[in-house]
């Protein structure tokens, strides 16, 4: 089954660049594992929520908001699409994601296929 792991980070937490993450030992073992097992089928690392623009349409009018669509304690910092056997395996992967260890959380969502 395919799952999207929504990587959530606390607002105000450290913003690591992709280069910094690549050098961070907490991430390297995780990245190594998912690569060697070819579990990740897609995804993206997102720039901080402060760089977001939210688009709404009311009638003919396009409304823009600076920032994410909802003010919250956490924001989505990245999305991994993984392919694993079942929810238990997806949970096991999510529970080893450095974001889940470091005060953030990972929302596991089955992909509509």
């Amino acid at each position: 089954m395919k799952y999207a792991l929504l990587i959530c980070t606390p607002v105000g937490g450290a913003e690591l660049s992709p280069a910094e993450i690549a050098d961070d030992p907490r991430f390297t073992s995780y990245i190594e594992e998912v690569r060697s097992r070819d579990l990740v089928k897609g995804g993206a690392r997102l720039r901080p929520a402060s760089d977001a623009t939210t688009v709404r349409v009311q009638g003919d009018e396009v409304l823009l908001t600076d920032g994410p669509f909802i003010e919250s304690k956490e924001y989505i910092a990245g999305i991994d699409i993984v392919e694993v056997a079942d929810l238990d395996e997806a949970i096991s992967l999510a529970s080893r994601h450095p974001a889940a260890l470091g005060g953030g959380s990972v929302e596991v969502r089955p992909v509509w296929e």
Partner: protein
Amino acid sequence: MTAEEAVAAAFQEEWGQVVATLIRVTGDWDLAEECAQDAFAQALDRWRRDGVPRRPGAWLTTTARHRAMDVLRREAVGARKLREAAMLTAPEEPYDDSGVQDDRLRLIFTCCHPALHIEARVALTLRTLAGLTTPEIARAFLVPEATMAQRLVRAKKKIRNAGIPYRVPPAHLLPERTTGVLGVIYLLFNEGYAAASGADLVRRNLCAEVIRLARVLARLMPDEPEALGLLALLLLHDARRETRVDADGELVTLEDQDRTAWDHAEADEGAALLETALRRGRPGPYQIQAAIAACHTTAATAKDTDWADIAALYGELVRFVPSAVVRLNRAVAVGMAEGTDAGLALVAELEREGELSGYHLLPATRADLLRRSGRTTEAAQAYERALELVENDAERHFLEKRLGECRST
């Protein structure tokens, strides 16, 4: 035995097994339930005519399976499932990673999967394992039938859509998942046990259903002393069920219960199971709670209760379950074993921490210890505080009675 009695007995013994096997065979929870129901309906007809088969469970499973194949044959989309169903007429079952191979155990672990909301776990367990109807479960949990029906639909949908596996978890996940399963069974029992008034038979019957489930679990997990400990605990509690309220529905404390009216056969069975569990040398919270319950049931009179033993057992329990509620229970036991001052000191500690500030049993415990030490004025104040917080009617009446006693002395 008449055919009706045989079907009723088979329903209690075999419902869970039939549904569990059908879920594995078809992968479809609704179809499994539907076919199981159909098989039991057919059994009534056929057993009346042809007599009760030698192995009712096997008869029911085969009949339900045939029914499932009929249904799937009619649905084009069922083609793949049908192949599987046809293959599974062979008796052997696939082994799990954990080496366990009973379908009911798979079903128990799936119903109690931690990715499901606790309410969903409880409802699914009663529906698919114990065979309670949706209206019965709704009544047991005091929610409208439509709400319960929706809860069951949503839970089955999540199992399917989120890919919750139908299996006993692999060895590395087994300990924590087992704790979750035991927790659901314990919660279910408490729900039935709390319905002490006797007015609501469905809620009271829940205890019997849950004990049956606990028996199945203990049998299916022979290497898990906590499963045995839980069964022992439930039996020891249930043995006292008739004496917990008087004829007027008023709560009777353990101290004042008529011990001759306890179900001693049930208590003895619980105590014997506990012995077996403890011999494994792997104690856990359910075994310890069962040991505490056994201290009560084996005491000939309330005065003979070995409170020092109970206080020590609570000390052990706090190590496994360091919750404020367990510590409050320990305070009661210490108060009885070492004197009310020692108990009050532990209560004061909990009051300072504030975690139980909205919980009526905190002032009620303080009140009881004060009452025992003869400080009735202070006790009355504490009872008043407990009455502000209490929600259950039977408990309210009990506290009011105690308050009256304190004021009149």
